[in-house]
């Protein structure tokens, strides 16, 4: 028995040593921060005057580079971020937002659709990133195991490619997708997939009825109340899309837009918050050079869009 236990201990000790060494190398060599939370990792500034929330439509739709010298700006959006997490992030960083600031809340077509947050696709993997951003009480279904992996043993949850690259300090060509430009055939195909993903998959029940998330409505009303408490000015925004995307929805679900706008108008009426819809804006909808795919602006498009917002929506700041 002694020999058995001793060998197990040696085995565990060896495994632990190698694992911790690899983890150390991984953390030490990791040059690029996860692109998703890059902005948060660099620090959320104080006295924010202009900021936005939202999913990838918000993340890629705002580019503050032309106004950053004049105003303190921040992009709180993350890919696939729900309105519930928009609210939790706002709760956590509310003290960083200045009185009289302007807060854009991005509303996408799918913002209010789908099953509950924890039933959503990729909930576990998407939820992990908030362990680096938010305190535990604001993380949905917090567990210490994930916390340990994310914050102390990240090599164990890295993808094989990421692990290899960082252990060996490989410099692989990583094209920044935000700089890409869309083209017609790809945009068409992408739009069809995006339509399925955003409007159909897990968003229609057995009877063919659209599933609405009550928790998303609660979150948006809570956000508005909190922003009004802070003294900030909330504005609802729908970012520009290529015509392929809006057409895919119009052709496949002709009734969708009237449903969507009636939901948004109800919220606008209840909250008295202004809503600006750029989803069909002619300055964008047919210009592939401004998009990286059918529904996401690229860096250039985001810059143009943000500048338009500043002129058209935030004229009062001047």
């Amino acid at each position, binding site marked *: *028995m002694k*020999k*058995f236990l001793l*060998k*197990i201990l040696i*085995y565990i000790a*060896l*495994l632990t040593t*190698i*694992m911790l060494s*690899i983890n150390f190398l991984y953390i030490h060599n990791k040059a690029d921060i996860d692109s998703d939370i890059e902005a948060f990792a660099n620090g959320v500034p104080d006295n924010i005057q202009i900021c936005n929330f939202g999913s990838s439509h918000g993340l890629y739709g705002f580019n503050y580079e032309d106004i950053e010298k004049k105003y303190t700006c921040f992009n709180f959006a993350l890919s696939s971020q729900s309105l519930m997490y928009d609210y939790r992030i706002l709760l956590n960083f509310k003290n960083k937002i200045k009185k009289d600031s302007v807060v854009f809340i991005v509303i996408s077509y799918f913002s209010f659709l789908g099953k509950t947050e924890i039933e959503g696709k990729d909930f*576990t993997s998407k939820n*992990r990133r908030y362990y680096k951003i938010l305190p535990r009480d604001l993380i949905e279904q917090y*567990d210490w*195991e*994930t916390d340990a*992996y994310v914050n102390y043993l990240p*090599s*164990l*949850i890295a*993808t*094989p*490619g*990421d*692990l*290899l690259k960082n252990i060996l300090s490989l410099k692989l060509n990583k094209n920044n997708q935000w700089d890409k430009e869309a083209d017609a055939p790809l945009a068409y195909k992408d739009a069809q997939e995006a339509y*399925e993903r955003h409007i*159909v*998959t*897990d968003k229609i029940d057995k009877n063919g009825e659209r599933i609405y998330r009550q928790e998303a409505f609660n979150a948006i009303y809570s956000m508005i109340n909190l922003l009004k408490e802070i003294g900030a000015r909330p504005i609802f925004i729908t970012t520009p899309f290529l015509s392929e995307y809006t057409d895919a929805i119009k052709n496949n679900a002709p009734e969708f837009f009237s449903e969507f706008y009636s939901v948004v108008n109800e919220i606008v009426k209840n909250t008295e918050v202004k809503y600006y819809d750029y989803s069909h804006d002619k300055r964008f909808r047919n210009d592939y050079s401004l998009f990286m795919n059918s529904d996401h602006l690229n860096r250039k498009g985001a810059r143009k869009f943000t500048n338009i917002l500043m002129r058209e929506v935030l004229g009062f700041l001047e």
Partner: protein
Amino acid sequence: MLFNSWQFGIFLPVVFAIYWAVPQKFRWALLFAASYYFYMSWNVEYVVLILFTTIISYFAAIFIERFQDNTAAKKIILTFTLVSCLGVLFVFKYFNFFSESFVNLMRAFSIQLHPMTLKLLLPVGISFYTFQTLSYVIDVYRGTVKPEKHFGIYATFISFFPQLVAGPIERTNNLLPQIKAHHEFNYEQATYGLKLMTWGFFKKLCIADNLAVYVDKVFNDVYAYKGFALILVTFFFTIQIYCDFSGYSDIARGAAKLFGIDLMENFKSPYFSASIKEFWNRWHISLSTWFRDYVYIPLGGNRVSKARHYINLMITFIVSGLWHGANWTFIIWGSIHGLAQIIENIFTRRKNYQPRGLEWAFKVLLTFTFCMFAWVFFRAQSFSEAVYVFSNMFSGIGSLINYLHQGFVDIRMDKFLFASFCITFFVMLMFDYFSREIDVITTLNNKNQILRWFAYIAIGMIIIFLSQKGVATEFVYFQF
């Protein structure tokens, strides 16, 4: 409590340490308590069901022995036990299925009825322990096994935690004497057990769980996919279900060995079978032999007319399909395996012929392909989903390169993940290939110490870095 959870990582060493520290006479009690704690960690209430099944079968066996000269009384007791144990299984697993199927049948005759359904969670492992219980009572009835008088030891036999929730479905003659026997710690057996567990974890965590991500993504939204993506995930599911279930069996057998108990082998490289018959001799052996001994042979087996033999085969496979789940897809899956065996039987002239070389390789490939496509019925949620998979899996094949490329694009499989899958799949394939002839673990034990430790460390590191983290995924067969 899943095998792949940190709770089990604490539970097993604690039970192991206490087991070897306490005197032999208390060990059954420890295993009994540990097993019930293990089972209650899923759902405390369902312990009542396993206790009910255990008590009924315990007393039934004793009464059967008492009335051994009274065939009518024995039959009544056996029937009562079968009805009681299978009744529990029926209510929890099959009631809704039969109720809905009956309503659908009536609808075909324009009779409108509302199905009566029960909102019950399926207790984990109910099919496994029910079948183990039944085999005990039937064996006592047949006189091949003596009833166990010690209730605690009998209850431990039914609930022995390593094999409680997903088998192997043990036979009385193998497991019960081992629970009663005096055990001395055996270094070789314990280290073999740990190595077997490690191999099981490798298959479950590094292969099955990683493939499950893609399989679930596609099969949970199957109508959004077509073309090669459907073939890819069908192939992935073929590998996933094997690694998941045989991984569980290896962990179970390995854990049992730590307590000096040898469970039966449940898988013997099934995907290296050259026929469907051979596949069933290598796949889920404890269930296949159960059906052979308690369904197929009592029906007459092959010692009847050809037509009757084929009917027996079909009945056995349909029941086997139904055992897996209360859905028509499982019945179809069982039926096509039964049908394949009948066809094989018709066209096989030399009964004990063993193909070799290229012929063997071709037949293995053919059997594998058949099994792979049959798994579609097993994985699909409904018959129409399975039909959709079959009718769309070759869509776009006219442009072959684009067809293959699009498949990978559709499932969004990262190239590094694909490379890691290829490596782990190759390791698994080699292990299984050599396992046909030799015991790979024992062979490795005889190799140079440095080589051995290198292999142990390598597999340990692969498990640590390539397994899914933060999600303890259930084993597929738990649902049965």
